[in-house]
């Protein structure tokens, strides 16, 4: 009885751990280099077979989407993760100035997505910034970016 309860608790813990892991993975975006090289590795053969001669620009995604039912499982899976990561990172980088404007104008004296803003966000405690702004900062990849000069 007791052993059964422990087992059950362990099982729940494992399940929660996996759910948490998936959540954490979804919260991060990859660098563009990492994302697109994962696509090249997972989908290289599918590209050669179904999308030969299709440019890397938006058209490649359309071509892969159009062949979703025949792609190899690893390519189908990777394609979804990769394009999700790329579009979330691009949207965050594009919109961070607007998303963060309310709380950082006061803290940083700017809302432009420039090097100054990024440095200021890095120095500011995440608890002082709204959840939306924190998420955009994380998605942008700039939290960990080394802004060299």
């Amino acid at each position, binding site marked *: 009885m007791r052993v059964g309860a422990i087992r059950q608790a362990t099982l729940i813990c494992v399940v929660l751990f996996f759910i948490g892991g998936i959540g954490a993975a979804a919260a991060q975006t990859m660098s563009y*280099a990492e994302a*697109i090289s994962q*696509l*090249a590795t997972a989908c290289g053969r599918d590209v050669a077979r179904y999308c030969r001669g299709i440019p890397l*620009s*938006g058209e490649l995604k359309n071509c892969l989407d159009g062949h979703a039912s025949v792609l190899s499982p690893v390519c189908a899976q990777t394609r979804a993760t990769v394009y999700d990561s790329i579009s979330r990172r*691009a949207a965050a980088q594009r919109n961070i100035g607007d998303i963060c404007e309310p709380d950082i104008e006061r803290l940083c004296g700017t*809302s432009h997505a420039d090097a100054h*803003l990024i440095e200021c966000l890095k120095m500011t405690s995440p608890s002082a910034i709204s959840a939306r702004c924190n998420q955009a900062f994380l998605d942008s990849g700039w939290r960990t970016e080394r802004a060299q000069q």
Partner: protein
Amino acid sequence: MKAHYLSAVAAIAFALVVTAALAQNRIGAGQMTNSLAAVSGDTRLDLTASQMRQAALDNIRNFPGNIPPRPLSFPQLENLAQFTVEVDFDFNSAVIKPSSYRTVGSIADALHNPILLGYGFLVIGHTDSVGGREYNIGLSQKRADAIVAALVDPFGVNPAVLQPVGLGEEQLRDPRHPTSGVNRRVQLINVGKKFCFGRTGEQFQCQ
């Protein structure tokens, strides 16, 4: 037995050399950012993309031959922050090979680095000497266009800061080996602050 052993060692040594060569060839986003950020001042560049294209065509007319007898040069660009990478395309085509996807992704990472926001960049395509000179100008222009198109979609680089230019084989990197792969390359040059950002993030020309 010993021969087997030696050939195995030789194979491993060869693999190591090849890996080292590949690693050297793979320049990362951090290095690209550093190369582009070494800004040489905010002097306004007195050279447009269409003037560069015209200069390449003039170079063919003024110095005819199978291989350019005199390389085209743009002294204004020489001291600007820049880097050069190799990008593989399908033969005689402007389609980027999957083996070069990572390189294009790294360029996108570099251009999105906050310290480079608002700068303008020339994206210059170069070919080797295989094929006619005028044809190669067209091919390299299409290749530079393809790189810019990929940087914009899916990687979200602002198209207003990118200017593609094809110079064909008019600036061979290794004129003594004009058909060598090192001549097929893409050059990114920081041409200076092009855009400023307003209070709400809207863009306007700095000048």
